[in-house]
């Protein structure tokens, strides 16, 4: 990875290494939210939530726009990924499922003979 990539990865992992920020990301990836609507979801001050949103914005994970007095945030990580890397990510999800099927059927054969308690 280049120095730029390393810095971007640092910002990304820092941004996502916080439970509230990951929760904010899930909401804004599903659709645009005003920062005040987001703030209402958490037991913390508007300023604290705004700070979290700023960290995510700096990492390139979300974008903000103004609409009158409101600030609207939406998730945006498309800059980070190409179609090739997206298919690779999807592949990892599927590999996880396949591994779990393999475990499930292995469990049949290992427990079948003496399963009764």
């Amino acid at each position, binding site marked *: 990875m280049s120095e730029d990539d390393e810095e971007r990865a640092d910002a990304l992992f820092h941004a*996502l290494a916080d439970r509230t920020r990951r*929760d904010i990301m*899930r909401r804004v*990836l599903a*659709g645009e939210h005003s920062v005040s609507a987001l703030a209402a979801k958490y037991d913390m001050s508007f300023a604290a939530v705004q700070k979290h949103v700023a960290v995510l914005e700096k990492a390139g994970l979300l974008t903000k726009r103004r609409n009158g007095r409101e600030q609207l945030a939406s998730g945006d990580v498309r800059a980070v990924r190409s*179609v*090739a890397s997206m*298919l690779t*990510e999807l592949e990892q999800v599927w590999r996880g499922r396949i591994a779990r099927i393999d475990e499930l059927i292995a469990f049949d054969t290992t427990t079948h003979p003496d399963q009764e308690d």
Partner: protein
Amino acid sequence: MPVTDVTHDLDALTLTITAEFAAPVERIWQVYADPRQLEKVWGPPSYPATVVEHDFTPGGRVNYFMTSPEGEKFAGYWRITAVDEPRSFSFEDGFADMDFTPNPEMPVSTNVYTFTERDGRTRATYVGTYETAEGLQKVLDMGMIEGSRAAINQIDEFIAS
């Protein structure tokens, strides 16, 4: 590892993955036909799936939700389009509201799962297609958050042990 082949078609936005399981076709079919088994394999351990409706017939729906470590639920559905037991089935996979009404803002993928048997083993071919790169992006964006969360939880466990 049971995965034997993977193909990425960048133009068609299609992922094809082939796996071989040490069990006959009927056993692998059961994994999908039995909601209790399906929920064991569909979601990662950190995001377990719960199947609440399972009509495994053409036109039928499989409704499920996944639960985050914090207890938040995310609903999804399959709309079954074809069933040829135990050889193949096709379905559309999408996101839904908590009453399982499909969420039209979220992308839908088209999936075909095929199973063939040889010498008592099953070769499973999974093909999934997204209509647009933006659609695939959106799905992964949701998954990426789950993935990073799982990874971070593992670090927490490691430190705690």
